[in-house]
């Protein structure tokens, strides 16, 4: 590896990066997927996203006012949480659901721990898991894409984990998002555009997403179908919330390991837990639980992958 770190005497040049700038750029990179979601599922998806964002930002502001801390609602982090939470909801949820989820995300997932940088779990996923446990009926009712009405149907992932072959859905459909699913997870193309932008700008590294996706693919190939080593690995990668989770939620700075070695362990762990939940667990989708469980393990990973001090 090329050593990019050159320590020299002053004057040092300060790079114009800040938490605020990075957060807003992550929001920007998520926009294509939002547009795709609204196009695929109709205007209702738009209002779910907007309500999620408004609820998240105002909860953050109110709680910071109430506890007399610095108001930081314009740093984009609360907005990002609300946006990611809304992306993880089915498009036909009642309008109070994104609001309840965002309030829970910010209040319990983030502010209770002391705000940005202190939270041990990804706030958006905390909100999603809360909604999943509280109102499973709304969280598992998916409408058909491009029909703009509420004809419910099973997601491709639900069919996959039950061991059925995918009917009427091609890989191209999966890639472009022509399938039932959550608002922000369906259009892989749009997600990849945002992900490539973040990777090129260096805001996320490839270590977590790549190891996460490859591990999930390998395990789906081995265990995904009845004779071993015949599983539909590509369909498993393209369906569910894997791409959204791997690039935008597992890579959260606060809740993922610091070193590259730790990030690789984190990614492999996420992939393992995701496939275990998908194939043998009670829920069809395991991405959110996998990332949350690995969030909990992150301090331990950090402890055991601490880089050796040079010369010791």
């Amino acid at each position, binding site marked *: 590896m090329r050593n990019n770190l050159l320590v020299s005497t002053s004057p040092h040049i300060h790079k114009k990066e800040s938490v605020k700038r990075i957060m807003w750029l992550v929001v920007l990179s998520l926009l294509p997927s939002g547009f795709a979601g609204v196009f695929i599922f109709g205007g209702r998806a738009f209002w779910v996203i907007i309500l999620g964002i408004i609820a998240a930002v105002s909860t953050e502001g109110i709680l910071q006012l109430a506890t007399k801390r610095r108001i930081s609602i314009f740093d984009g982090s609360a907005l990002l949480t609300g946006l990611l939470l809304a992306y993880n909801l089915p498009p036909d949820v009642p309008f*109070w659901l994104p609001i309840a989820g965002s309030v829970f995300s910010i209040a*319990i997932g983030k502010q*209770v721990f002391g705000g940005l940088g202190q939270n041990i779990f990804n706030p958006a996923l905390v909100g999603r898991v*809360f909604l999943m*446990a*509280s*109102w*499973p*009926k*709304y969280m598992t009712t998916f409408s058909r894409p491009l029909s703009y009405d509420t004809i419910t149907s099973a997601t491709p992932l639900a069919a996959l984990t039950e061991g059925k072959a995918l009917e009427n859905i091609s890989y191209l459909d999966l890639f472009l998002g022509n399938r039932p699913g959550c608002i922000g997870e369906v259009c892989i193309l749009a997600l990849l555009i945002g992900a490539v932008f973040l990777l090129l700008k260096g805001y996320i590294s490839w270590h977590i997403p790549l190891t996460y996706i490859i591990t999930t693919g390998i395990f789906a190939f081995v265990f995904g179908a009845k004779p071993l080593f015949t599983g539909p690995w590509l369909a498993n990668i393209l369906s569910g919330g894997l791409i959204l989770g791997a690039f935008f939620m597992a890579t959260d700075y606060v809740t993922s390991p610091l070193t590259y070695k730790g990030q690789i362990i984190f990614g492999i762990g996420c992939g393992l837990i995701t496939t275990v939940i998908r194939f043998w667990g009670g829920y069809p989708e395991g991405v959110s639980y996998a990332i949350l469980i690995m969030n909990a393990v992150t301090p331990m990973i950090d402890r055991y992958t601490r880089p050796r001090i040079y010369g010791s």
Partner: protein
Amino acid sequence: MKKLTQEFSKGITVLNPTFGLILGLCPTLAVSTSLFNAVGMGVAATFVLVFSNLIISLLRNLIPARIRLPAYIVIIATFVTICELAIKAYLPDLGKSLGIFIPLIVVNCIIMARAEAFACRNRVLPSIFDGLGMGLGFTLGISIIAFIRELSGSGSIAGFGLFKGNELILVMILAPGALLTMGLLIALTRLLGITRK
């Protein structure tokens, strides 16, 4: 007399077992899905606590220090058995819904803690008041948690249905709801200065 009321009231406020000492968590988390169960559990634990404190305090100079814990457990188990048989005879519904958690009062850490920390080194009357206060504090704590959980999770208060539908927060009557309610209430009592900061 002033000292006795102090022994009594400290268990409800400063040293509240649920929010201050954070003891006896198993029954607190497991039984607090409904107010009826919670009050039943609290009263049963209070009964055992008062009488075990009484007997241990009486015998405090006779029990050899090296085998004091087994001795305490025998005394506590006696009263738990009395309590369990009484509940099964007179309140069979409550007995059924509390299930294993009545026999488990034997190893409830509040009772062990009060025996070890208070009853074995204090006279009989303070020990009784300490047991009463701690028991009431525990009953109060578990009942507040149960009230919140039952109302938000099943839409009822002590079994009387108030509202129903899909909008009830299902997670509140599951295990995470117990931990969430408990954590927020501990934070609240510390913020208000009821328990120590």
